[in-house]
């Protein structure tokens, strides 16, 4: 590859990475913004967030096409190929996270005019903060190629899972105390689920970052177990020789 073509190719890779960071920036902002709109029943704020999600969708399509173009024209290999594939995966994870915040904005309309129990409000705020923190850390891991941070996200997500369980219990409690209607309770439980899913997407981003940096894939462990079950001797032999 000539010097000029190589420069253009690496510029293109940088531009794709920059595109991912900009999309992620929109989602990082959408999480606290959507939560504030939801908790303060701000219909205009919710509407603005729903409309902004369309911009994120457009950015996602543009980035995806750019990745295909680079794959088709430059035929990257090894680390460069993994970088493009990671960008494609991250694109989907980020776009979906944006959709989840858009769902929370839509829920603002569905529960408009109802009072949410202060304890549930507090827990939802904590879920939002935790989801935003995980999401930002996953993007930090991507930008810096930090596999240690990327691998830690799975364990960090446990806190959000615990908060999810705690909040859903508080929602049931509030319904039992007749503080909220059943349909509002269902909507609140869905909001919990949306935050929890954002945490899962952050974990997925971390896994893809590990793939980008050192080629590790989360499915490899399962695939190795399946191979070991098919041919147990091979697995035992491998373990023995390693040991």
């Amino acid at each position: 590859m000539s010097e000029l073509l190589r420069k253009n190719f690496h510029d293109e890779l940088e531009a794709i990475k920059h595109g991912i960071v900009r999309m992620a920036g929109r989602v990082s902002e959408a999480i606290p913004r959507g939560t504030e709109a939801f908790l303060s029943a701000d219909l205009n704020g919710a509407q603005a967030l729903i409309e902004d999600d369309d911009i994120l969708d457009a950015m996602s399509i543009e980035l995806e096409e750019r990745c295909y173009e680079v794959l088709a024209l430059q035929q990257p290999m090894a680390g460069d190929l993994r970088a493009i594939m990671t960008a494609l995966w991250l694109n989907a994870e980020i776009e979906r996270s944006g959709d989840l915040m858009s769902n929370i904005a839509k829920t603002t309309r569905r529960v408009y005019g109802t009072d949410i129990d202060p304890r549930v409000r507090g827990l939802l705020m904590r879920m939002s903060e935790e989801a935003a923190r995980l999401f930002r850390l996953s993007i930090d891991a991507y930008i810096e190629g930090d596999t240690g941070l990327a691998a830690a996200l799975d364990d960090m997500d446990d806190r959000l899972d615990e908060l999810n369980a705690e909040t859903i219990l508080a929602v049931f409690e509030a319904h039992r105390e007749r503080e909220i209607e059943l349909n509002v309770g269902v909507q609140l439980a869905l909001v919990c689920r949306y935050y929890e899913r954002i945490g899962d997407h952050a974990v997925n981003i971390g896994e893809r970052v590990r793939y980008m940096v050192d080629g590790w894939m989360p499915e490899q462990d399962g695939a190795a177990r399946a191979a070991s079950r098919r041919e147990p001797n091979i697995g035992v032999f491998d373990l023995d020789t390693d040991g």
Partner: protein
Amino acid sequence: MIAVAIVATAAALAVALWFERARVRAVRQVDQMAASLRDDVGVRSDSMNSALDRLERAAQDRATAPQVDAAEARRYRASLSSITLGVVLVDQEGRRVFDNPYAAAFLAGRHGDAVVGDTVDQLTTEALVSGATAVQEVQLFGPPRKTLHVIANPIVDGDQHLGVVVLIDDVTEQERLDAIRRDFVANISHELRTPIGAISLLAETLADEPDPAVASSLANRLSSEAHRLTGTIDDLLQLSRIEHGADDDFVPVVIQQVIARAVDRVRAAADQRDVEIGVQLPERELVVRGDDLQLTSAIANLVDNGIKYTNAAEGVLSVRARDAGEHIEIVVQDNGIGIPPKDRDRIFERFYRVDRGRSRSSGGTGLGLAIVRHVLVNHGGRISVDSTEGDGTTFTIELPALGGVQDQPEPTLPEASNRPEPHRKPKGGQS
């Protein structure tokens, strides 16, 4: 007007810098062309060589002359790099030709900052296409929260469009102060006009009321509204006195006594709402230098606030104090409804209400926490708040310790009055 002046100045500096760079680049190109032609032509033509010599000399002359201007350009660059305002210069082709470090932090930033980079690109395109100024406010939720104004201004030289200069201005503090001013005017109108309106209507109804029982009820309500108005004015006057108060009369004050008096003052309100107040104080006296009445008022306001917003069913309010070395720490903790994060920084403003709908049912004038803050500023102390909605609120006060009276049997030592007024200086934090 200031924004326009900034735009004009930045645009002028940026254009000058840009032209200078373009000129130096052109001179270098001419120089390189001359050298290249000489290599190609060799020594076959004296006249051509002579012409090339002249061209090279001219290029060198021009290259020497702009060195003065290059120094000027460096000054422009240094000036633009030193300002706390983002400046981005884009040529007519949409290529970014200059950005100062303040802008670069956003353009190469991550998370919320990346959104600003997006906005810069979007406004640049708009300004290039329309030839008109494009402006957008960007709210970043962070943390920390920020408000930025991004302005893209076309650069025009006569009929020629040279590009766009984009400015990124952080107006967070300005917006915060604007919000305080705006809300203060709205809130004081609400707090004063509501009882006055009620008094006026009640007086009109009372004048035509023939039934003595109804008239008596109306008179009671009239009295209640007047009492509420008096309370607001009393609190305003107290706040004014505290704001203008000096520490000349400060004396050693025992915190245990202050807390006991404050709790006694609000005991009736706590009983009425069935709130239990638990007080935990150390045996060793905690002493600060201050105004007894002001400190009692501050603690009473905090405890009263806790009573109003604590959980009615199982209301527990805790008041604790301890010696934390250089300062005395007082904690007032309730298990009430809590304070939403967006309101936490604003609850110490005068008349600020987290939930205006609840303000009348909970009573109070909306000045309690403002009084607390001013008392602490007067005493060189500080207050912080930690709250989760549904779990309650904890206010923590820190006051400079004077030392226990057991350790310091004569607290009114002569040197105490000669101290360089450390108590007037707030330690920072809430303000």
